[in-house]
C-alpha cells in the first residue's frame, strides 16, 4: 500500500469524514456527549440511520482499518487466534479463501470483516455496504478490509484480487487481531479455558 494511497486515504477521505462529523456534533448538544462507538450505534438507529451515521461510522471504520494493519504484517496468526480460526473455519486457508471471496463479491462500496458473533459465539466473515459496521448488531469485529475503491485504486486500479492478497500476505496485523479477540473473550464465552493438569 503506497505512501500516496495512505496520504490521500487518511488525510483526504478519513479526514473529510472526521471534519464532517465534528461539524455535525458542533450543532447537536445531545450527540456531542457520546463516545464514538455509541455515536455509531445511536445514529444507526436500528436500521433507520440518521444523516450523521455515514460520517460517524466511516470514522470508526477507518480508525479500525489503520489499526488492523501493520508494517511487516500478514503471515499467519498464532496461538489462540489460529486455534479459534481453525475451530470456526476448518483451516486457515479456508478462512483466507472465504475472506478473499467475500471481498471480491462485494458490489459497490463496502467493507469486509472478520467478526466474532456474539450470539453464535463464533468467528465469521461478513461484508457490509457503504458505511455499515457490525458493531451496530452487537458483534465484535476482529479485523476489517476497506473495499471502497478509494482504498486500492491508486495502487491496483481495478485489480481487487491483488489488493486483497497483498493485504492478507503483507499488511494484516494478527497481533492486533489477537488483542481484540482476547478483549472480546471477556464478553463472549468461547469455551472453557484449558487448565493444564499439574
Amino acid at each position, binding site marked *: 500500500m503506497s505512501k500516496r494511497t495512505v496520504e490521500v486515504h487518511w488525510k483526504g477521505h478519513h479526514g473529510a469524514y472526521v471534519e464532517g462529523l465534528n461539524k455535525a456534533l458542533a450543532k447537536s448538544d445531545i450527540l456531542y456527549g457520546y463516545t464514538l462507538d455509541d455515536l455509531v450505534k445511536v445514529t444507526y438507529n436500528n436500521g433507520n440511520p440518521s444523516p450523521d451515521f455515514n460520517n460517524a461510522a466511516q470514522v470508526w471504520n477507518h480508525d479500525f482499518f489503520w489499526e488492523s494493519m501493520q508494517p511487516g504484517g500478514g503471515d499467519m496468526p498464532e496461538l489462540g487466534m489460529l486455534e479459534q480460526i481453525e475451530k470456526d473455519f476448518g483451516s486457515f486457508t479456508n478462512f483466507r479463501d472465504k475472506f478473499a471471496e467475500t471481498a471480491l463479491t462485494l458490489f*459497490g*462500496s463496502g467493507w469486509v470483516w472478520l467478526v466474532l458473533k456474539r450470539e453464535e459465539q463464533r468467528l465469521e466473515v461478513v461484508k457490509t*455496504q*457503504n*458505511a455499515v459496521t457490525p458493531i451496530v448488531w452487537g458483534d465484535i469485529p476482529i479485523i476489517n478490509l476497506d473495499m*471502497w475503491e*478509494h482504498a486500492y*485504486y491508486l495502487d491496483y486500479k*481495478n485489480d481487487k484480487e491483488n489488493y486483497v492478497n497483498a493485504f492478507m500476505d503483507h499488511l494484516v496485523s494478527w497481533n492486533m487481531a489477537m488483542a481484540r479477540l482476547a478483549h472480546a473473550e471477556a464478553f463472549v464465552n468461547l469455551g472453557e479455558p484449558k487448565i493444564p493438569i499439574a
Partner: protein
Amino acid sequence: MCKLSSIGDLNKYYVMLARKPGELLFQHSHSHLYYTLGFSAERYYPEYCLVLGQQRLIKFNIVRERGLTEREKENGCSSSAAAVTTANPLTCSLFPSQGLRGTTSGLQWTKRQCTRKASALTVTAKFELKPPPYPMDALEPHMSKDTFEYHWGKHHRAYVNNLNKQIEGTELDETLLDDAVLITYNKGDPLPAFNNAAQAWNHEFFWESMKPGGGGKPSGQLLQLIERDFGSFDKFVEEFKSAAATQFGSGWAWLVYKANRLDVGNAVNPCPSEEDKKLVIVKSPNAVNPLVWDYYPLLTIDVWEHAYYVDFQNRRPDYISTFMEKLVSWDAVSARLEVAMARAAEREIEEARKRKEEEEGNFTDKEPAEIFIDGVADDSETD
C-alpha cells in the same frame, strides 16, 4: 415484451429496410443494436413485421444514424439508416430505389407469415462492448486517457463479459439491454444479472453523455424546460452537482424526464397537461438506474470512485464541476429529450385509446338492459 410504441399510423413511423437477415442496421437512441428480422424480432415484435416482396421490414419509431462497427465494415455492410422526424411520411433516404415514398399501398402486411430465410449470418445474442463515440484521449485534459483505458477497457468490459456469461442459455439471451435491465431488476428483488446488465447500460449511456469540447449551456426546448422546472440553468447545475456529491458510496446522478402516472387501478389524471411532465434530478446507488422507476433518463454522471480516482483522487466536487463545465454533451441530452417526449406522448395516446375501448366495451354490455323511454337512441356508442 414490446417496448416500442403502438402501431398507429404507418406514416408516422419509420420503416427500415432489411437488406439481409442478421444485418446490423441502426441504433436506437439509447444506443442498443437493433438487428434486422431474425428470430428475436419476430418473436417480440410480430406486429412490426411485414413483407415487401422478398424483403422483410421492421418498423421502429425513433432511430438515429450511427457509424458501422469494425465488424460490419469487414462484412461489407454499407452505411446504416438515417433518422427521420415524425412529420415526414416515409422520406427515409434508404427508400429511393424501393419507390416507397409517400405510398403505403405497396406494402403487404403479413403478420407472422414471414418466411424465414435460412441465414448464413447468425444473429449473435450476446451484448457487445460498444466503444465511446470518441477516441480515448479525446476528453483530455478533463478526463484522462488513462482513466478511459481502465474505466472503459477494464470496468465496462468486465460488466459486459460477465453479463454475457450470466445470461448464456437463458431467455435474457435474446432481449435488448433495456429490457434485460428491467427484467433482472425484478421489481425490486434483483436477479444476479442485474448488476452487470444495469452497469453495462449505465456506462454506455455515460460515454454518450459526454463529448470533446462539451459543457456550456443547452438551448432550445431543453433549456426552456430546465428553466421551467428548476428556475434557472444555474440552479439546475447546483442541484445536479449537489446530488452527485451527496450520493454516498458508489452510484450515479441523473437528469430524467418524468412523465409517468400512478399505476393505480383507474387513477386517471383528470386534466392531463404538459405541466405534469417534468425534468427531475435523481440519484441512485450502485447499479440502479431510473429505467426501473419508469423515468426517461437524459443525462448521467458516474460517481463510482473508479470514474474519477485516477484524475481527481478524492476531490469528487472538482470532478463534477469539470464534468458540467467541460464534458457534458447537451446535444445528446436534447436528442434524448425529444425521444422521451415523443414516447411519452405516444404512450398517452395508446392509453387513452385503450381506456376508450374499455368504456365502449362496457356500454355495449349494458345496452340490452337499458330501455329508451324517450325513444332517443344512443347512437354515440355504436361504432
